[in-house]
């Protein structure tokens, strides 16, 4: 029993590592989008695109998380992306992240 939990926890740690890598790959895209939006003079906040992203992730969702849960999780992902796009000009790539915002 104990061993099972330890195994599962190791698996969770491994998945978390993947998630962090994926979230950062996504964030790097958001940063680039932010820079391009600024160059083109397009507003950072694009509600239609956000709705599209939320719609996509719910369609791809196979559970066990329900659609509302996936939506809530991605709302947080989008919140952070919106923040990154806003400060895109101040962020230097390939620099270690700081602990505070």
């Amino acid at each position, binding site marked *: 029993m104990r061993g099972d939990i330890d195994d599962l926890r190791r698996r969770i740690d491994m998945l978390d590592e993947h998630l962090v890598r994926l979230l950062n790959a996504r964030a790097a895209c958001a940063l680039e989008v932010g820079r391009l939006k600024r160059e083109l003079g397009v507003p950072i906040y694009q509600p239609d695109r956000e709705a599209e992203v939320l719609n996509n992730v719910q369609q791809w969702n196979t559970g066990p998380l329900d659609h*509302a849960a996936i939506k809530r999780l991605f*709302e947080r992902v989008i919140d952070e992306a919106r923040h990154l796009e806003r400060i895109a000009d101040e962020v230097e790539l390939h620099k270690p992240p700081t602990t505070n915002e």
Partner: protein
Amino acid sequence: MREKATDAQVQNVIAKLMEMGFDVHRSTGALRTVLGAVGGTRQFDTALLEVLDGVQEVHRITEPYKLASRSFKSENTVITIGDLRIGGDEVIVMAGPCSAESEAQVEASAAAVKRAGAKVLRGGAFKPRSSPYSFQGLGEEGLRLLKAAADRHNLKLITEVMDISQLDLIERYADILQVGARNMQNFTLLRELGRSKTPVMLKRGISATIEEWLLSAEYILAGGNTNVMLCERGIRTFESYTRNTLDISAIPVVQQLSHLPVLVDPSHGTGKRDKVAPMARAAVAGGCDGLLIEVHCDPDHALSDGAQSMFPAQFDRLMAELRIIAPAIGRSICLEPVARRGWSAGRMPSGEC
């Protein structure tokens, strides 16, 4: 957002928040959407958001004031005036007559409050009275009398400044400038005090919320005068038995929100002499940094506020009680009680001075 808020309404609020410089955290619940706004500016009017379509309510989490807030400066502000420290361990008592009336009256009051252990002489030379026909104060002559008496007894002097035009004059005499309750939102006066170097005691307005009070303090701090202390003096409530309702709970509330010293004026807070001592004891037990008490040698013939002025003997008894209460919460009061000419508690008959 409201339960039936549309996506377009939510999006409009997000766009508005971003325009104001906030990062937005959107949480969609089963019934309603909650938008969290992070960062951005402190100076904004929540009403701007409340009027947007689909908005149910707006809650401000951060304080609208900055320099006065505990989050800006975590350690207590201690105001030093010569050897006097306001906001430290010692509870500072400021006492004296409501107004300076004559040389003899001022001298007798100063001697009495010094003997009892007060550190600051209070007294008005320019009086803001509810009626224009009431005694208005002695003006500069009053300041001169107060300052001379304070110097003779090694007391600091606090007196009220009512108007910008009096500031230069009063600053020459006073160690602490008092802003009265009626002037708490006299923003031109507050701005001028911000440019002054003299410490300021800001009384709470008669109907002011604690937030409004701290915003007024912010005016003085923002001008560069960091020596600001606050004074609770009672607020207007539905209760009519006492003149005002002394808000003792303001002490811990302000101490949590702000780093500024908090004093209490139980004399104006109750308006009745026999209620002053109990409220003063409560204020010290509640953790105030100081008291402002009206003491008059002949209150029944005082030209202003006689009914709330204590007799010297009552004041002395109160000080003796406070010396027992203060240590219970780790504070001291009047570290070196002055016993001149063999005088001691209880020996002086009321009205001797």
